[in-house]
């Protein structure tokens, strides 16, 4: 072989090997990056998971950074401490159960698909190994555990409350109530991504059971947390359950509504005791019956913020009863 051909061949081989070797360093390797699907938005999930995406869209996870109620309470997120959980980077970025960090991108997506489903190595987490589908999810036992939710939901101690409950001992976790199994139109089974909770009246009504009785000159209210694996209500500051009563006198006059009891945890720097009802617990409150009253009207309200009245859309009527008085 002629010398110049040998030299050209040598140059090709040396250049090729050298270049490929150096490019094989993962950081900054555009070819590797191009071949590897990079997940950065929930929009990427919509095409294959339309029904799940529709469930999530409009959920309080999706609107967590948009919700006017939250924006008001956080002073439009000038309270920076709120941003981490309302616009979080993937949980796995810091680790299951660890505090999440805030992100800059996709503000409309709030707690997005990737917040829970993106693994630390950039792959997708799921309940089952599915190497055959586009996002090739792989199962991870920790992905289904309470620690996943804890990263955000223990900011206000909800998962601590769950750990102290019988639900934890029986292995009933967050997903069992807040992500029930659903059958989808395409025939598939899966966990609901609506995340029903404090904004869903049926979920709320399952949580508390109110027994009403008359004892001498008192109305007696016994509220039992029968359906929540955490306090009722849970979270701080924002949530309250009120037992309200008014009396109707013989001439039809109604006394003003008065609060028999408020179940609520005051905010961190707010005075007052925590009156939330732990899972399985019963609490009794009493209100003296007004002289001459013929009936008592009772209402139980769930308030998304304690500073609102009955007419506010942030108040949900859980129970309304009228009791004839002896």
């Amino acid at each position, binding site marked *: 072989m002629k010398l110049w051909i040998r030299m050209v061949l040598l140059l090709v081989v040396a250049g090729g090997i050298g270049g490929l070797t*150096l490019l094989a360093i993962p950081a900054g390797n555009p070819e590797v990056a191009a071949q590897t699907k990079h997940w950065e938005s929930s929009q990427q999930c919509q095409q294959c998971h339309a029904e799940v995406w529709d469930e999530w869209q409009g959920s309080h996870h999706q609107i967590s950074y948009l919700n006017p109620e939250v924006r008001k309470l956080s002073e439009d997120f000038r309270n920076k401490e709120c941003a981490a959980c309302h616009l979080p980077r993937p949980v796995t970025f810091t680790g299951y159960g660890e505090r999440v960090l805030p*992100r800059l991108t996709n503000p409309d997506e709030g707690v997005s698909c990737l917040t829970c489903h993106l693994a630390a190595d950039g792959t997708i987490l799921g309940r089952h190994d599915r190497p055959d589908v586009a996002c090739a999810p792989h199962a991870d036992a920790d992905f289904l555990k309470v620690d996943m939710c804890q990263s955000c939901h223990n900011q206000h101690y909800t998962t601590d409350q769950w750990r102290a409950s019988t639900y934890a001992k029986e292995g009933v976790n967050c997903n069992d109530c807040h992500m029930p199994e659903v059958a989808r139109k395409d025939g598939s089974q899966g966990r609901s991504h609506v995340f029903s909770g404090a904004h869903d009246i049926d979920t709320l009504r399952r949580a508390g059971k109110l027994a009403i009785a008359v004892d001498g000159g008192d109305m007696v209210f016994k509220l039992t947390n029968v359906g929540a694996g955490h306090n009722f209500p849970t979270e701080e500051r924002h949530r309250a359950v009120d037992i309200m009563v008014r009396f109707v006198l013989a001439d039809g006059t109604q006394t003003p509504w008065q609060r028999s009891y408020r179940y609520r945890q005051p905010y961190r720097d707010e005075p007052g005791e925590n009156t939330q009802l732990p899972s399985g617990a019963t609490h009794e409150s009493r209100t003296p019956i007004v002289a001459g009253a013929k009936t008592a009207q009772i209402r139980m309200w769930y308030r998304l913020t304690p500073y609102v009245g009955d007419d506010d859309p942030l108040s949900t009527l859980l129970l309304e009863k009228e009791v004839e008085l002896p």
Partner: protein
Amino acid sequence: MRSLALLTVAGVMLATTACDESTAASSAPAAPKLVEVLPKLTEVAKQAPPAPAADRQAQLKDLVETAFVAGRADGRLQEMARKDLLDDPDAQWALEDALEHQDSAVRSNAAFQLGELGKQCSLIPLAKRLKYEMDPEAKVWAAAAMAKLGSYAGLPTLIDAMNMTVAQTAGLQSIDICKRAGIELPDQPTYDELRAFLRDLYRGWQRTGAVPNMKDGTTATPQTEGRIAERLLHLPDFQLRPVDDTRYIVARLGQLGLPLLKEALHAKQPYLRMHTVEIVYQLGPVAHDLGNDVLPLVTDELTSCEAARALGAIHADGALAQILPMLHASDAEERAAAAEAIGLLGDPGGKPALQKCFDDPNETLDVRVRAAYGLALFELDRPAYHWMRQLRNDGKYHRPTMDELIDDIDTRVRDDSRK
């Protein structure tokens, strides 16, 4: 033969490209060397002033009630109680405790007296009060007291307050602050003039973290260091409220926190390292000298985004070369942070890359928005700024985020803190 020649060219190009990448990689800062910082902070925290015994605390609280709560005692008794309180060796503790009193008049009095008492370490509880205070008058007193103790972080509060019902109090305190800073005021300064003087003082403070005419104002006393260490020890907490309190407070102490922040940037504990970078970002140019401590953190996956933004905010020397490659990261979060950082940095060498990023139709909107933000900070590039405003008006991007970015551009360009 032709294919052989093509192969040759391809091979050489491949090698050249690889060498470019390799050169870039070799100039990257070394991975951060992480050390245990918590024990040191725990030790330094012991320098914080101790609280008096419980029975003394009760006495002091009672004295505060008598001295400051209206109608609690007659005028003569109230004056005696005030004198006793201020003469008490534990007056500082009593006044700092009174900053949390439910009566806003008590909080105002306590803040004023703490300013007079002159203990630098009271800046920490005063800064916390500044964060949470809802009463405009008490907020003015907290801001004014901070100015006396060495922090101008509350001056924007005073500037705003001169448009409110508490304008007179704010005006009088502003006059006092200007005089202490050596500013020669007109005989009867207008609110506009006072606001202008305060803005100048605030801009200077943002650049230097130093209050004019204050001896030793940029060196933390052992008590102040102790309290800063106490705050930093909260950064690894799970609950975000104390974390955010720390970010807020330490970012308003100018140079006082820099020595401990420098150490915390190297902390093994990830949240301590991470949130310290955020504090550095908030401090801005005051923390310029921490540039070399922040630089390695761009290679730390946990802190890369925040480190880039912090490097930009503090105008760190040599940062551009480390931030530019992040514009090509596979993670949009990193690209967005890099775009923002280049604008904050203000190095003209970064402008072409930022423009390219902004012009790239295939780039995600989030990153293009941050590139526009970065370009707008170069001031002359108004098209990017107008594009942002148009995007906002058309409702094509998350409005509160866009509002926040545009407000930030307006403030930074107006204050021109990079000069």
